[in-house]
């Protein structure tokens, strides 16, 4: 008995081929940290269309998932905030893309609920706002609250700092964000990793995503400029 499966052997193109036209795709990341740029580029190259994209934001203009959106591959975006992406706001305003907004923690919680095999959760967030419109309401202890359905996806694209061959993942600093949640919530989980270690090379108490959740690991051979410092955010 051993944990000897090696999940690093599938080529990125073959892994990304799991995303079909019309698929729902979760993409990790909050800004640059944790965004799987190489997997996004591979998805762009694969040419699939009519995607439903689930991501905290849409990265910034011409970066990351914004490339997919600007190329017209995304039919619907489920997100929290687009304040740093004028291109996508423009497409939203002109009706080129449908956008569904959630409070950031509610979006995180919907994804987590999907990963946890729940049907949804009940919250009072937004109860006094226009967000309650068209929501299913539940009465708890005599007070109305909002039912938020769980969110799942066909594929999740994840960025990890380090992975072992069995598929255990660890994230670094603010690069964790939505990644561990999305890694539980999709039928197929593809993770890129900056560093690959042999199975057993990670501290079992410090693994953020256990191997059972991960289907494919794509080693990042070159941490490109996209992963680097954005000069316009430097003081």
């Amino acid at each position, binding site marked *: *008995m*051993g*944990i*000897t*499966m090696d999940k690093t052997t599938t080529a990125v193109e073959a892994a990304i081929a799991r995303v079909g036209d019309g698929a729902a795709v979760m993409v990790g990341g909050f800004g640059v940290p944790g965004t799987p740029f190489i997997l996004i580029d591979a998805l762009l190259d694969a040419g699939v269309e009519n995607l439903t994209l689930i991501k905290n934001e849409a990265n910034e203009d011409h970066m990351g998932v914004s490339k997919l959106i600007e190329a017209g591959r995304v039919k619907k975006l489920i997100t929290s905030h687009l304040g740093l992406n004028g291109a996508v706001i423009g497409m939203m305003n002109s009706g080129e893309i449908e956008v569904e907004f959630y409070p950031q923690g509610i979006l995180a919680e919907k994804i*987590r609920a*999907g*990963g*946890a*095999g*729940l049907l949804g959760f009940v919250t009072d967030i937004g109860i006094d706002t226009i967000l309650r419109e068209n929501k299913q309401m539940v009465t708890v202890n005599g007070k109305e609250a909002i039912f938020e359905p769980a969110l799942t996806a066909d594929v999740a694209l994840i960025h990890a700092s380090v992975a*072992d061959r*069995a598929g*255990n993942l660890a994230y670094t600093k603010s690069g964790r964000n939505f990644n561990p949640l999305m890694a*539980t*919530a999709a039928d197929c989980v593809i993770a890129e990793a900056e560093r690959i270690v*042999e*199975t*057993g090379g*990670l501290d*079992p*108490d410090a*693994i953020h995503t*256990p*191997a*059972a*959740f991960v289907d494919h690991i794509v080693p990042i051979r070159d941490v490109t400029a996209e992963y680097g410092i954005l000069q316009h955010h430097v003081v």
Partner: protein
Amino acid sequence: MSYKEKIARRAAREVAPGQVINLGIGLPTFIPHYLPPDFPVMIHSENGILGMGLRSERGTEDRNLIDAGGGYVTTLPGASFFDSALSFALVRGGRLDIAFLGALEVAENGDLANWIIPGKFAPGIGGGMELAQKARRLIITTTHTTKKGDPKIIRSCTLPLTAAGCVDTIITELAVIDVTDDGLTLREIAAETDLETVRNRTGADLILPGGGAAAVPTF
């Protein structure tokens, strides 16, 4: 070989390489002993472990490392630890390929009862209900009959259910039986027994493989 060993040995053959499995308390914990050396498998324990190995040998126990039944266990390289919420997210979210559980009663429609005998035995629920309802495949490992000799495999459960229609396969000391849309299908019988005995000790109809024309394979 004891019943327990026979069932565990046969159950081990149901595991495919690379699967994530959970072993209920008792008999199922013997299954890993019958997996081939270096067979790739990830064993999950409800209390927050993925990648368990065999039970700890005497004198090597780790006070911080038990399985959900309280036994001291080892881990394999690639193991990970996590909290109880993530542990059951793994189960309910569909990442558990097989759960092996015991049974008080299994019905021919796949209903399972194994957690309560009202007024007699009610120690709680534990993780079994979620394992039964949400594992991709549920294999029941159990003696074919109760200690009194009554069939455990019956037309419909008399005890409160753990989950409805959840059982995929039943492995006993006498037989391997699959729950199918048509009913209980006998896949194998033990070499030491015969069809007549298996039928007598089963409280529901058994469909024979190939419509009964072929001999039932033995294990």
